[in-house]
């Protein structure tokens, strides 16, 4: 099943020019996202996943700057567009859901007004129609009593309801691409389940592609079709969700998977496999592969040279000189 390519990120670089040196937050990322596909982008804090998503929409603030690459959306490079053209794309063709619905929503406008604003800006409708559409959107995302909620302010709503309102806003203009940046991280697990269910459901309805950014591998397993694992501004592994979980090849992906306590294993109260050490300082990056100081399989070449992201089997890309051959064998050791 070949799907139409919607977004292609080629060697995207976003650097922060700080007083203490250049921080390469996004350091040459390549990603492909097809129509109505869900791509999970996972990584720990500081791996550049949020900056990558902001770079797509060109929302990175000073001292951050694009330092090269292309973001090809529907055949056109977003990085070459004027600010005017970008404004038309943001919110209509590409929409975003943020982590903290309290700070992402404007506290002095009602929920209804904020959802309606997006519709009025991007669609050729009058206020009455826009209001009708807003109420319909609020209903669609499962906000009870939408006509009354239309006039409520963000502080009058719970976290889950606010996140629903954000989703309503993001989807109000039928985007082709939805970027979800840790959309459920601030929510409790039962509310998270509600929101994920809603996102899956709506994704099927409006056939949008989702770039699903999270630190939680379990969420990726639930939501994504393909997965990209990021470490220190680079993609270290990219494959289908099944491959990533069943046959991880990069030692970082493998360590990450093994370090989360599982609900299935019988071996509770046992030491978890931990990745030694911690992420390097962005001001003082190690030579060669960024992961080598923490990697149990590192060899001399890893300390000298950054490996390329190579296809080791169809559709499975790994940035490693010594990829794990057989995950089962390794776990025995």
């Amino acid at each position, binding site marked *: 099943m070949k799907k139409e390519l919607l977004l292609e990120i080629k060697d995207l670089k976003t650097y922060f020019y700080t007083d203490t040196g250049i921080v390469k937050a996004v350091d040459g990322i390549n990603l492909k996202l097809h129509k109505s596909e869900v791509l999970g982008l996972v990584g720990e804090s500081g791996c550049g996943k949020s900056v990558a998503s902001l770079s797509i929409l060109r929302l990175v603030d000073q001292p951050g700057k694009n330092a090269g690459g292309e973001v090809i959306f529907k055949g056109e490079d977003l990085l070459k567009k004027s600010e005017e053209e970008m404004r038309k794309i943001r919110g209509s063709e590409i929409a975003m859901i943020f982590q903290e619905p309290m700070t992402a929503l404007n506290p002095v406008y009602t929920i209804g007004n904020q959802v309606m604003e997006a519709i009025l800006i991007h669609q050729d409708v009058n206020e009455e129609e826009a209001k009708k559409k807003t109420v319909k959107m609020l209903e669609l995302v499962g906000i009870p009593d939408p006509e009354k909620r239309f006039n409520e302010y963000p502080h009058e709503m719970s976290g889950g309801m606010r996140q629903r309102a954000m989703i309503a806003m993001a989807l109000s203009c039928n985007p082709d691409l939805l970027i979800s940046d840790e959309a459920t991280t601030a929510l*409790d697990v*039962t509310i998270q*389940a509600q929101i994920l269910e809603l996102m899956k459901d709506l994704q099927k309805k409006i056939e949008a592609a989702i770039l699903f950014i999270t630190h939680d591998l379990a969420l990726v*397993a639930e939501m994504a079709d393909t997965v990209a694992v990021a470490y220190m501004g680079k993609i270290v592994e990219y494959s289908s969700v099944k491959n990533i979980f069943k046959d991880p090849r990069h030692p970082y992906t493998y360590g990450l998977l093994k*370090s989360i306590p599982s609900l299935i294993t019988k071996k509770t109260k046992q030491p978890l496999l931990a990745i030694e050490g911690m992420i390097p300082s962005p001001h003082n990056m190690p030579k060669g592969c960024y992961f080598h100081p923490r990697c149990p399989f590192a060899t001399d070449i890893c300390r000298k040279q950054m490996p390329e992201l190579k296809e080791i089997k169809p559709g499975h890309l790994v940035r490693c000189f010594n990829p794990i051959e057989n995950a089962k064998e390794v776990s025995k050791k």
Partner: protein
Amino acid sequence: MFQPHRKRQGGIEKMKKSILEVKNLKKYFPVVGGVFSKPIAWVKAVDDISFNIFEGETFSLVGESGSGKTTTGKTILKLLEPTAGQIIAEDIDITNYSASEMRPLRRDMQIIFQDPYGSLNPRLPVGEIIREPLFVHRVGNKKEQEEKAIETMKVVGLRPEYLRRYPHEFSGGQRQRIGIARAIVLNPKFIVADEPVSALDASIQSQVLNLLMDLQQKLSLTYLFIAHNLAVVRHVSDRIGVMYLGKLMEIANTQELFNNPLHPYTQALLSAIPIPDPEIKKERIILAGDIPSPINPPSGCVFRTRCIYAKDICAEKMPQLVDIGSGHFTACHFVKKGGKTEFTKKS
């Protein structure tokens, strides 16, 4: 001066000795209003809960935000004054102890906080932070205290050379190690670990969990582990209590709780956990709505507004937490002795 780390036997017999008993504990916070700032309402953060913690075990409290788990932990240590109920620590009723009466007992009862940024004094070097409990409790002279601080740093995996560094020079995981070092430096028996890993990244989280489990073995510690991440809780706990809106809904040993959850809330909570395996598609119980306000909780069973099995009786009577067999406690009208359930869906 310093005793070697206390060794306690972890056999079955010893396990059953209760190190802490909580009886009908309540903690209400006033909501003040009006000109004279009088209480106009009460937030029932913890509302009539009872449980035991046995020596050498890890007892976990799980629940969503606002369920009262942190308040419970703080009230047990008397960092908050209980509104009603009893706290019995090793046969001593400490409910009405004053701060000065509590002080000698605090040697045995310590806490690890969630936020490794907010809970360390930014103006003290790490060595001083870890030494401070020894200083407060007048254990040894300064030199001995410093030696003990260095020894403790080694135990938690911090390099002793970092003694003179300040908290801001450390990463989140290392700061949490500092917090742990401060908690164990007095050789306590009992530690409340309040969300000790929730602020940490996955790869660091497992390091800290391993350290906590390792220390429990070495120092024969008893933990009250407070967390919202059920996978973490399952990994470290012996027994688990599930809280919802200030009440305990279910208590059981870890395996029993995960294999045979009986309370409808526990069932929904467990089914909501995402599983890191794309091939497992499980049936989800999606709860409708949000947690009600603890200022004005629902009558009867506090969970009934979201429960798919709720009946008339649930609005009238709060079900008691009863032992339905072999230490499995549940507070639901429709869970009977022996774990038989009589759930029927609302029509």
